């Protein structure tokens, strides 16, 4: 199995918004590679004839009726906001839009 590159670690760190130092990237390169090697053991199992599984719990199709319930108060909703203004959560200026 191809081992993890430094670029892979940096890419994953960026996606997770982790600011890793050069030393940390080096350490993660080794650690993550070991973790992946351990998981690769699973690839040795013969899974032919087994349907892809995304869930191991046995319940299915759990739905709720479309009935509104009370929400939190604005005060409660904003209790953990680092900064607020006029009932909004304040964040650094974002240009453009999300995905």
């Amino acid at each position, binding site marked *: 199995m191809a081992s993890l590159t430094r670029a892979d670690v940096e*890419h994953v760190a960026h*996606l997770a*918004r982790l600011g890793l130092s050069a030393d940390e990237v080096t350490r993660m390169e080794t650690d993550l590679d070991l973790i992946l090697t351990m998981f690769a053991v699973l690839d040795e199992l013969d899974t032919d004839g087994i349907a892809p599984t*995304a*869930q191991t*719990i046995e*319940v*299915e*199709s*759990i*739905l*709720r*009726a*479309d*009935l*509104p*319930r*009370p*929400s*939190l*108060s*604005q005060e409660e*909703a*904003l209790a953990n906001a680092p900064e607020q*203004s*006029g*009932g*909004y*959560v*304040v*964040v*650094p*200026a*974002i*240009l*453009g*839009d*999300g*995905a």
Partner: protein
Amino acid sequence: MTSAVATGWEAVIGIECHVQLRTASKMFCGCSTDFQAAPPNSHTCPVCLGLPGALPVINEAAVRHVLAAGMAIGGRLLPITRWDRKNYFYPDLPKGYQISQYDLPLVLGGSLTFETSEGPVTIAITRAHLEEDTARLVHRRLEDGRDVSLVDYNRSGTPLMEIVTDPVVRTAEQARRYAEELRLLLVTIGASEAALENGQMRVEANISLRRPGTEAFGTRVEVKNMNSFRSVERAVAFEIERQAKALDAGEPLIQETRGWDDDRGLTYRMRIKESSDDYRYFPEPDLPPLHVDASWLEAVRAAMPELPAARRARYAELGIPAADAVTIVADAGATALLDAALAAGPSLAPRKVANWVVGEYLRLAKGEAGATAVAGVSGAELAALVTMVEAGELSGTNAKEVFARHAAEGRPVAAIVAEAGFRQVNDTDALRTAIAEILAANPAAVADVRAGKGQAIGFLTGQVMKATRGQANAALVGQLLREALEQA
């Protein structure tokens, strides 16, 4: 209206629509979706704020709306669907991921057919899936001078359907017509209010150009922020022209997202896609898979109303001109009025009733007074009115006035006609009696007519009209009067 054609290029357009579904509560929690006029952050809970430990539960109504939409576009409804996490960081997404559907969406395939100025067009639909909406961002400068973004999580977790076409749209007009027809369909089945102007339906177009006859796609540009159907057409037309000019000049295009500026009538750069998005989708562990069984599908099918295309076909079979049918079906009020009038007046020619709906009802409904001008309209009364006109009991001009009054006030047509004295008397016997009385009472005038004084006929006609309080059919009075004078 057809867009300007960029000569030598073929436009390849795929349209992606996000539609807020019509539910009382959010996608995965019980927070009310009735927050349009609410203070910010007043409709949230641990689930839609993404607080640790909160668990989502799927709203049945949201799934039902997507199933109905899938059925309405003739798509394949997958028996087992699943939710996936789409991972990215943005302040409008409190969990750090959006619960969406990746490889097992509720609906695969389907199509939408509509009329254009170049004839009917069918657009293939790739898929439709269910996801949750993000929070709303407001960009503002605070009093201390800092430019910040403000986040309102009321919209966070609202049920959203994404419906994507194949890259088979070719013109700006097709793009607009597709969006219009999709909106009509979704409103008809009750899945969404789908108003573009307030973001209930958001239309994005992926546009690239290529040489006609070639297969490979050109550099793709995503255009968004079009908040009316007219904007969709203008934005797509502008972008086709912009790309054609750049390519003709040998300038390379950049894969980017551009916004439509309706006031300036142009698209502007919002952001450049530096690398392909890496959302690291994986199955949502907090939600079990969903089985859509046959009995559920049957219930959705049973509740399906007549769809716009079927409605237009039915009207065509009734002899209603195609243009009138398109106009009527595009308006829920007009459709309801026509159907009610036809039910109340089965012997009336549908074409004539449709003519009233298009010519008078829609003229009033779309006039300055708007909905109040037609607040009292009733199909049975329209049928009664058309019956009177067809029987010659009411002149066309008077009938229009009667209809306008009825539509606004809701009073029965017969009452308005009687009150205004609009009824035309066509009863030949009654008119003959009245004429005989007038002739007997005005021997001098009769003698004048006999002596060749033509204007005396006008006097006698006036007397008959006066005796019938203006309700006699004037043409008929003239004819009967001449007959009576010849016989006398």
